């Protein structure tokens, strides 16, 4: 295969991944690494480097649209970014010490877990209005629009949320993914932040988290311009287009199909990891 046709194929694959990721809300980054490693037989270290770059592009590209809606909480985001960025550096360091097979197996498990999470119905976490001393001191409480009014919410269990965020950052740095799903769980389930605020704030944090490990990957020579270029441009174009048609699309079936794809990729990553093919 020539470099030209390889570039076009990877660009198209990344476009579809970004498009479906935005439509289903599952993020395109999570399928980029298995797509490159299993379908295009790219070395998993190059795949992770390229994926990390694409994660920064989609997070930053979508931020302007999310900000206008007025849901994201910049104080919560900034405070928790202390945990995610330190976690991301730790993850990127672990990545140099473990074998590519281990990374493949961990990646497969994370894929299966993401599919499991998306298949569950949205748990309805009750709004807990009792004040939290720590949250008040850190000025984390905020308001979010419901209809025409601004509804206040309080933030809870900050040490637990902070620890989960460290874990999300570590996975992001180790696997080159945004770990948006885990970030949302930390905010929505643990810290009792409204779901819409959690998802938009998580998107805001993903780019900063990925930037913390991207420099380490680049300096180690894991970012190949020939691979990162079509992946970044493809995922970015796909996710921007996906966000546009999101309003009109019926996403229930798409989510199901995409979840099945994620399960298959996850099992294949684990199998290839155990058989040493990665």
């Amino acid at each position, binding site marked *: 295969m020539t470099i030209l046709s390889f570039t076009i194929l990877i660009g198209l694959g990344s476009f579809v991944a970004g498009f479906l990721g935005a439509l289903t809300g599952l993020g395109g980054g999570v399928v980029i690494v298995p797509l490159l490693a299993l379908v295009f037989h790219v070395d998993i270290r190059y795949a992770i480097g390229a994926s990390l770059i694409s994660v920064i592009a989609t997070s930053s590209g979508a931020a302007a649209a999310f900000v206008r809606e007025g849901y994201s909480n910049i104080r919560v985001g900034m405070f928790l970014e202390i945990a995610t960025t330190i976690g991301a550096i730790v993850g990127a360091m672990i990545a140099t010490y473990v074998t590519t097979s281990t990374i493949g197996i961990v990646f497969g498990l994370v894929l299966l877990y993401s599919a499991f999470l998306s298949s569950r119905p949205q748990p309805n976490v009750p709004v807990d209005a009792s004040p939290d001393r720590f949250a008040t001191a850190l000025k984390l409480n905020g308001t979010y629009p419901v209809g025409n009014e601004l509804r206040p919410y309080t933030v809870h269990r900050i040490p637990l949320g902070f620890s989960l965020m460290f874990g999300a950052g570590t996975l992001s740095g180790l696997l080159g993914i945004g770990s948006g799903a885990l970030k949302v769980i930390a905010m929505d389930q643990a810290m009792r932040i409204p779901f819409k605020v959690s998802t938009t704030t998580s998107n805001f944090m993903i780019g900063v988290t990925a930037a913390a490990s991207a420099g380490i990957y680049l300096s180690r020579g894991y970012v190949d*311009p020939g691979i990162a270029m079509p992946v970044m441009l493809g995922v*970015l174009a796909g996710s921007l287009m996906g966000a546009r048609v999101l309003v009109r699309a019926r996403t229930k079936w798409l989510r199901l199909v995409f979840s099945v794809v994620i399960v298959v990729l996850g099992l294949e990553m684990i199998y290839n990891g155990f058989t040493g093919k990665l």
Partner: protein
Amino acid sequence: MTHPALDDRRIEIIIGNLLRAGVLLAASVVLLGAAVYLVRHGLQPADFRTFRGEAAALRTVPSIVIGATHLHGKSIIQLGLLLLIATPIARVAFSVIGFADERDYLYVALTLVVLGVLLYSLLGSGVA
């Protein structure tokens, strides 16, 4: 002053636009590099199966900039990727100014910690 010049909402909107501008700039530079790279190397065989690690010229900021000024396609792409990595870092740096303007010194300090971690990662890894 009872009303700071920048409230949370305005800071967020400026930050959102800053991020979008950064991504568009980075994507344009990557596209330009892609054109040069594909015109020169497009018909060569592709081999990304084996991991060799990138050449030293594509690993650090100074050498990438030098390569880009010599119009090397791969260096121009890498420069675009560096601009992309710099975009969220610029966002954090701008947030420091925003919180300082609000006289929210607790968050000036917390944001400086995040900025410090990001810079530690960049400088410690030897990219910059």
